[in-house]
């Protein structure tokens, strides 16, 4: 018999707070985490952003020394992973450690500029330019010995597996912004095929820094700092001015359904299907997810969209939703949480899971009433909806396209 995959734990750290309660209430109330973020002195770099304020990684990382080798993305990842495992009641479960694994969606983590600047400063020639010879003798030793490890894409998974003692399958997917949601798909595959009974999956990113802002600006997707900057990101709206950068982490505990039932775990939802395709193939991914779940397009009641707020990308997504899940109501979280990169898709899956569980779909913050791009956007206040089947999307910016279908098990199916 086919092994089924349940979601039994959720953990998040975002600009609207720590933990899923904070996330859910902010979503229902459209309380956005976007504010003005300033880097350096007054009059310096000033942008709208969704920053995680008052984050204390020491709460989650007992070994203080380890923090030094953890980029902020990694610290956020560990926090959300710990919260998800606690929520699942899966800490120190009496299960074989090699049956509990982890998949993280990740990618290139941003260096702290000042760390490199100090090293480069020691390496300048008389002309004020980098002298590689001097870098070898003076610049290189100015970096700290474990510097490389602080930013390696696979380090979030390694730290989490060490802190939580997860000896099962361990993988890091680097497929662009959708990698966090793709990690969830990969974890579901592993549980289905029987290699593990429990998997942590999700992602984390912190590019709300000068390096990240300039990267998004170069890619031509960053909303400017002028005007009504805090509401500049408007999914499925021609007036949208691009992305507002956020930071955050989202992790889910996936569990083989019978395993979860046997231990009396809280079961949020079941993952019934997913689709993963190459860039700009939104339709392929969404269609595959719906088909794998044994559904007809009209069976999807609600889509938690990627909704980047980048018009060209949103048009592609809207077209895919209209064709592959027509009639569904649509929500999107970017105006609330900013664009949180590798973690965005995982955070959206957390939101859609809570929506399925509570029978309420949160509104798109800043969205005006009425259909847009031919979609039934939820606007203003939350919409009560008995969701049978929900889709969560993560697309865009040159990464892979990922769609996941979930359903409620409240009826006992």
């Amino acid at each position, binding site marked *: 018999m086919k092994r089924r995959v349940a979601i039994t734990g959720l953990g998040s750290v975002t600009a609207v707070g720590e933990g899923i309660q904070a996330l859910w209430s902010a979503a229902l109330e459209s309380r956005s985490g976007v504010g003005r973020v300033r*880097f*350096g002195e007054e*009059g*310096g770099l000033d942008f709208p952003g969704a920053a995680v304020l008052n984050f204390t990684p020491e709460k989650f990382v007992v070994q203080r020394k380890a923090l030094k*080798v953890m980029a902020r993305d990694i610290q956020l990842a560990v926090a959300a992973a710990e919260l998800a495992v606690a929520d699942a009641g899966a800490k120190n479960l009496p299960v074989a450690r090699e049956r509990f694994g982890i998949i993280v969606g990740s*990618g*290139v983590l941003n260096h702290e500029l*000042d760390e*490199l*600047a*100090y090293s*480069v*400063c020691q*390496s*300048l020639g008389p002309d*004020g330019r*980098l002298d590689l*010879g001097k*870098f*070898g*003798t003076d610049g*290189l030793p100015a*970096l700290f*010995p*474990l*510097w*490389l*490890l602080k930013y*390696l*894409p*696979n380090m979030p*998974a*390694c730290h989490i*597996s*060490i802190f*939580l*003692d997860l*000896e*099962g*399958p*361990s*993988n890091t*997917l*680097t*497929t*662009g912004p959708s990698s966090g949601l793709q990690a969830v798909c990969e974890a579901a*595959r592993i549980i289905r*095929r029987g290699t593990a009974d429990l998997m942590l999956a999700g992602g984390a990113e912190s590019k709300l820094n*000068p*390096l990240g802002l*300039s990267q998004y*600006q*170069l890619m*031509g997707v960053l909303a400017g700092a002028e005007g009504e900057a805090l509401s500049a990101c408007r999914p499925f709206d021609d007036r949208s001015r691009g992305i507002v950068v956020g930071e955050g982490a989202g992790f889910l505990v996936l569990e083989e359904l019978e395993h979860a039932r046997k231990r009396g775990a809280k079961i949020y939802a079941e993952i019934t299907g997913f689709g*993963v*395709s*190459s*860039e700009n193939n939104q339709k392929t991914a969404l269609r595959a997810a719906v088909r794998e779940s044994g559904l007809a397009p009209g069976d999807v009641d609600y889509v938690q969209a990627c909704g980047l707020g980048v018009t060209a990308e949103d048009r592609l997504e809207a077209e895919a939703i209209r064709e592959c899940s027509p009639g569904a109501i649509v929500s999107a979280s970017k105006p609330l949480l900013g664009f949180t990169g590798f973690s965005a898709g995982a955070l959206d899956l957390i939101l859609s899971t809570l929506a399925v569980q509570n029978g309420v779909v949160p509104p798109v913050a800043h969205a005006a009433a009425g259909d847009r791009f031919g979609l039934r956007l939820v606007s203003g206040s939350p919409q009560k909806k008995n969701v049978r089947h929900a889709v969560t999307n993560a697309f865009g910016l*040159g990464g*892979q396209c990922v769609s996941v279908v979930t359903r409620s098990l409240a009826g006992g199916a």
Partner: protein
Amino acid sequence: MRRRVVVTGMGAVTPLGNDVPATWRGLTEGRSGVAPITLFDASSFPTRIAGEVKSFAVDPSRRRFGRHSLFALGAAEEAARDSGFRGAVDPERLGIYFGAGDGGFNFPEFAAVLTASLNGGCAVKPDAWFRNSTSRLSAETLIEQEPHQVVNHLARTFGVRGAVYNSLTACAASSQAIGEAAEMIREGSADVMITGGAHSMIHPLGVAGFNLLTALSTRNDDPAGASRPFDKERDGFILAEGSGVVILEDLEHARKRGAKIYAELAGYGTTADAFRLTDPHPEGRGAIQAMRLALADAGLAPREIGYINAHGTSTQLNDQIETLSVKAVFGEAARNVPMSSIKSMLGHMIAAAGAVEFIASVLAIRDGVLPPTINYRTPDEACDLDYVPNAARKAAVDTVLSNSFGFGGQNVALVVKRFR
């Protein structure tokens, strides 16, 4: 019954040659591909040698691509020709599961923007950085350096409409990709998978990063003799670059189209040490479990394995723990199983290493030749197995175990066997 997965095509770009035949010739002749670094001025670095890809012809239309993409496309085109899958598979049933790492990094350009953005001291003025970087750097360069850009290029080139994944688990990445690609075929999600890996970290920050970890050999006066896995005098690994690509296919699909079948991918095991970032578990816990899982998956007992293609990095700790782990899994049989490390010749291609090692494992079965561990001179009492020292060996083998262990404790083992 479980769908069987076979190898129908292979391609490689390595420090020993820009295709599979040249690489395999180099490996079986026991030649080293390690030489002084030419990609940048490394004359003052602790390590000044590496396994660079040489005389690689770049298609002008790909001039802006990262090195990882260039190597991956080169190897994939060879593998595609070799396999003949193009036009013979439904694009929706064709997927990619790759293990691509970094594509290089223009450090001097980055440093120029950085120095132009300093606050008068050694800290960066954020607004100056934003202004300078957005006017002087290019989006294209940024995008082409991303690991996932490799799979984007592969998907476009081969018209892939099925699932696309990229795994980056450090030194285990491409082995993990091969194992997961096989699982996708087994579960019925695809009929043909393009898999393998590509990587290039031979740039100033890459070499500096590994030098800081004291992971690299500093035997600069003897490039060809620097990588010496399992030898007592080993002093670290040699950074290398390149790509290995493997075409995996559902057996029935391959048979129907009359494809050449190299071998069968029979087993895959993956675990985490969950121990420490920089060191393997002292008792090889995760490595042992990965090998056992792969053997069980293949339905083979340890004594049925004819050859082990080792991870064998040439660092003190890895080679010792790998030896101890193999002994734990194989028991008495360990002494009778030849085990060699081709990193002695290629250096360590990081994310791409496992794929090239898998290719060598397949060819060992095809040709009945075991590639050697070169530079093996001084035996180490902690490493006392048969490492196929210094010269290739004729041996008919039907089954090979290939190990890959990544920084941070990720372990992957693959079992490949003669197709029958």
